[in-house]
């Protein structure tokens, strides 16, 4: 995957947080992981990708980050339902925004949200994923890109 492709998703996550009330987000250096050991925090929103690129993009974050993020977008109800809704919406927004670079053939699914251990995220074992670390407030999260062309 090219640096240019990764930059599209880095720009997407920065753009998302810059539309909240706490805009100061930092993105770390992306790194590769084996798909038998996927990166995951408490809650994950996964978007399936089809078209010229195939695979998935997911946003994964600890519950406490998502609670603060809800407050930061003006949502005072930090219930579990809204935490799941938000993690899916972040994943959807980052993936959807990528179409400005990849075009309308970059097809995205509706989000699937999961909670719990990393072993619940099933990724193709023959591929590796790029992890983009995200630092917001005192919390860590990640955008993970598993795509093949």
């Amino acid at each position, binding site marked *: 995957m090219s640096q240019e492709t990764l930059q599209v998703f880095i720009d997407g996550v920065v753009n998302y947080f810059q539309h909240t009330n706490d805009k100061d987000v930092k993105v770390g250096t992306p790194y590769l992981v084996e798909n038998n050991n996927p990166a995951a925090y408490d809650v994950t929103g996964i978007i399936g990708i089809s078209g010229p690129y195939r695979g998935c993009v997911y946003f994964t974050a600890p519950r406490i980050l998502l609670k603060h993020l809800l407050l930061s977008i003006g949502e005072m109800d930090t219930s579990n339902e809204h935490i799941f*809704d938000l993690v899916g919406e972040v994943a959807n927004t*980052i993936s959807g925004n990528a179409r400005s670079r990849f*075009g*309308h053939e970059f097809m995205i699914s*509706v989000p699937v949200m999961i909670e719990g251990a990393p072993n619940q995220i099933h990724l193709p074992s023959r591929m590796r994923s790029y992890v983009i670390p995200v630092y917001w407030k005192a919390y860590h999260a990640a955008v993970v890109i598993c795509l093949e062309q």
Partner: protein
Amino acid sequence: MLSLMIVDDSNIIRRKIERCNDSDKFRVVASAANGAEALDLFKQTRPQVVTMDLTMPEMDGIACIQQLMAMDSNLRILVISALSDKATGIEALKKGARGFLCKPFTDDQLLEALTELTDD
């Protein structure tokens, strides 16, 4: 005051749009989580303005716009979507939408887009 229906599969986005419209210009009369639900609620409430997400389960936004416009060609639809490519925006406009706001958006951007939609 204009009646407004919000269509988005995210409850937090629906609630955000509702909060933004806490003014004397729009009155939210319906809120739907997908295109099929939107069609049912449209028949019951006949809103003048609709905000429409595109990526939704059961019936997506483009198909819903087409069916809503067949029922009311004067309907003013603002698409609010993360799909930021030009082709998608053009397709929505061809189906009858009058405006396009890309997610993520601020309260000010939403109010500006709704005002442009209803002032023309």
